[in-house]
């Protein structure tokens, strides 16, 4: 146990030191992890051993990441993206295979060259997606193109695994990487194997679509959080085992499960539960890539490896730019697309191992390629940096006279915390204006009903930071707080102010006192729950008493304006009073009296001055 804990401590400490440092230097967390890996690796402080095993285990982080990516992609959105996925992704993979294969064929037999091309055509899903997310580029159009290509590459792993053994030049023991799951189906005849594959995909679909909801609801009703976390983890691990058993990529399996669950109300709950595990595993995975850099090899063959890395990045970059042009991507997006994907991917490590054990590629060659891929992955965040520093500013200046992008109202992210009586009408208004809020509510029955009416409602306690995070608080523009509980509302405001200082806050205050509490926190947009209704009813009353409707309307508006103007003064008065000892009732009475005094000073003639003034002359 202790050596394990010690190892864990080394990893975690390395991450804790390196990542904040890297972010401080604007390098992104991925580069931080990679550097941490080099430092604690065999060529640094030599603090860890058995890196391959660590890397193999933490590859599971990639599986979890694809589950999370799937959760964010509704089936309809995925269907909309079918052209970029198949077209752009297919073009990138095929042309890259051809280009790398062609160049490599000058140096090695064609089988080796083709295998190399197949393996190097893939890019690093882990690094690229992580970096895109950090930069907030996931939902931009180049971000989506990048994602489409990565998705196609993940799908392409399956046929590549199937084709590689056919390229074997020396006979080796096969099947070494098959059937690592509980059951080994490789012994089955092919038609049964196909059947097993189809059945398991069908199983995932049924599980996600029909079984998961009642299951999660039961678990959520227990209100024991760990059980939900356990269920989420069991789901992801179970699916990846199943996929491995039938010989499919676990990442693909969990991705499908994620997409199926993307419509579920428990999506955010799942996201926030899996996220920390994914983050840690991926972090350690990146550390192990850093640690696996073989500096002895790199040192002795420095020129060759540098040349190969350069060739890899240049060829992939050129192909990407060509594909971008082929698919008529705007010029300023092409560069990001090209820079983002011009590296080797983590699947290459797996595939090179696979190729070696199947006798497709000789050991020295795979050693070399693994270093090349690792270096190119190390360079990936630096390429992003290069893009940010050199390319992006130039594109900005050349496109200066281009009109600013119109922000679609449907793209504006609004979080609506609390969906009770007040939140419901507010949500209806927003939806009518074309803004679809992400709704958080704690009432299971509420959530169920509202979902049936087509609202995007998620179950959970809005004052939980992780739920806010997965509801998209980091990218959201505005949070509207309509929780019934004043204490919870105050808590939520503090939480948002602390963690998302850029998120705008609009809040409902149950009464005047609650409004003062929010003013203490510096919230600017505060509406008192019953105030609007009181004034509207007042207008109705005046009208029923025979006031001209426009007169009644003017009085309401004027009253509201005066009340708003008096608010800061009353606030000061109330806060001063609180310092002295006073019973709450006394204070309430005093406040009311002050309020009434203010009201008497409201000059209703003010609005009509223009209409009634006599002209000074004639």
């Amino acid at each position, binding site marked *: 146990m202790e050596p394990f804990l010690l190892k864990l401590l080394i990893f975690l400490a390395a991450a804790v030191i390196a990542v904040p440092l890297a972010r401080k230097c604007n390098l992104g967390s991925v580069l931080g992890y990679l550097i941490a890996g080099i430092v604690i690796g065999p060529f640094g402080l030599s603090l860890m051993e058995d890196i391959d095993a660590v890397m193999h285990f933490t590859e599971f982080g990639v599986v979890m990441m694809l589950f999370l990516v799937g959760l964010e992609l509704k089936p309809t959105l995925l269907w909309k993206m079918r052209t970029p996925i198949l077209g752009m992704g297919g073009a990138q993979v095929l042309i890259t295979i051809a280009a790398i294969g062609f160049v490599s064929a000058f140096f090695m037999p064609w089988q080796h060259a083709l295998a190399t091309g197949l393996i190097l055509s893939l890019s690093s899903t882990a690094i690229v997606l992580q970096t895109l997310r950090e930069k907030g580029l996931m939902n931009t159009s180049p971000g989506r193109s990048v994602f489409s290509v990565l998705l196609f590459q993940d799908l392409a792993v399956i046929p590549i695994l199937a084709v590689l053994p056919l390229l074997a030049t020396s006979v080796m023991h096969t099947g070494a990487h098959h059937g690592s799951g509980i059951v080994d189906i490789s012994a089955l005849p092919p038609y049964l194997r196909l059947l097993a594959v189809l059945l398991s995909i069908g199983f995932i679909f049924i599980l996600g679509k029909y079984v998961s909801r009642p299951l999660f609801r039961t678990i959520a009703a227990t209100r024991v959080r760990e059980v939900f976390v356990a269920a989420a983890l069991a789901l992801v691990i179970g699916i990846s085992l199943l996929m491995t058993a039938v010989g499919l990529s676990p990442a693909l399996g969990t991705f499908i499960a994620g997409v199926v669950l993307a419509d579920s109300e428990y999506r955010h709950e799942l996201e926030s539960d899996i996220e920390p595990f994914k983050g840690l595993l991926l972090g350690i995975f990146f550390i192990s890539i850093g640690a696996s850099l073989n500096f002895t090899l790199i040192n002795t063959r420095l020129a060759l490896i540098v040349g190969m890395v350069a060739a890899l990045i240049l060829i992939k970059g050129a192909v990407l730019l060509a594909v971008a042009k082929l698919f008529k991507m705007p010029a300023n997006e092409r560069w990001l697309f090209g820079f983002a994907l011009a590296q080797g991917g983590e699947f290459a490590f797996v595939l090179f191992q696979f190729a070696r054990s199947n006798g497709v590629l000789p050991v020295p060659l795979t050693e070399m390629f693994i270093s090349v891929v690792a270096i190119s992955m190390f360079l990936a965040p630096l390429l992003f940096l290069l893009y940010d520093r050199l390319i992006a500013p130039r594109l900005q200046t050349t496109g200066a006279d281009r009109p600013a992008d119109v922000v679609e109202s449907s793209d504006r992210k609004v979080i609506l915390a609390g969906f009770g009586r007040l939140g419901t009408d507010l949500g209806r208004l927003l939806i009518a204006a074309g803004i679809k809020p992400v709704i958080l509510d704690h009432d299971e029955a509420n959530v169920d009903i509202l979902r049936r009416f087509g609202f995007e409602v998620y179950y959970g306690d809005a004052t939980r930071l992780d739920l806010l995070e997965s509801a998209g608080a980091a990218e959201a523009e505005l949070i509207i707080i309509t929780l019934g509980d004043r204490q919870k509302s105050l808590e939520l405001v503090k939480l948002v102010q602390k963690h998302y200082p850029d998120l705008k806050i609009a809040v409902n205050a149950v009464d005047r006192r609650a409004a003062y509490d929010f003013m203490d926190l510096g919230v600017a947009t505060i509406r008192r729950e019953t105030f609007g209704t009181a004034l509207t009813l007042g207008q109705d009353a005046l009208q029923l008493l025979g006031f001209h409707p426009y007169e009644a309307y*003017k009085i309401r508006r004027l009253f509201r304006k005066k009340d708003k103007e008096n608010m800061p003064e009353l606030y000061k008065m109330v806060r001063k009073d609180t310092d002295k000892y006073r019973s709450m009732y006394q204070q309430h009475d005093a406040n009311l009296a002050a309020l009434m005094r203010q009201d008497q000073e409201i000059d209703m003639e003010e609005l009509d001055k223009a209409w009634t003034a006599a002209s000074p002359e004639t």
Partner: protein
Amino acid sequence: MNKILILFGHPAFNRSKINAALRAAVEELESVTFHDLYASYPDFLIDVPHEQRLCEAHDVIVLQHPFYWYATPAIVKEWLDLVLEHAWAYGSNGTALSGKIFLQALTAGGGPDNYRSEGSNLFTIQELTAPIRATANLCRMDWLPPFAILGIHRGLPEEVCSQHAQDYRRAILALRDNQLDLQRARSFELLNQDLSAIING
């Protein structure tokens, strides 16, 4: 019998004695629809289709309002802006108002002496209401010179006030019963300059 729609706009109606008198004189008349715009749309959210149906259902359209800064109160302008749509009120297919009689009835603070080229307002009432006349023309309506009550800022004596209200009622009734000589009326500067001269019978 012509149907008459009176579009009335006054933002502080209960402070205007003369407009109250004018309103009382015509509001209850048969086949006259008195439509208080500020009462119907205190928040200015004008129901355009409803207003267009109203116009289509009447033969005479009257704009009654105080003369603010040589123009109409805000809601009347808003009404013109929104309701008089292209292809409904004007344009090659816009014939909904074609042939309807149009009258502007206004109350102004300044007296007749102010509304002259030598007076403080530099222009006559007809000159200052030219935009409304052009609007009526573009909508192919039969324009009449404005019914204008001037000099009200001094406050009108009770009997003058009721005299104006009676004149207004007479004019509206004549319009309703087809007893107004439109040709003749157009030769006057103001409609209420000499009512007896233009009303038959």
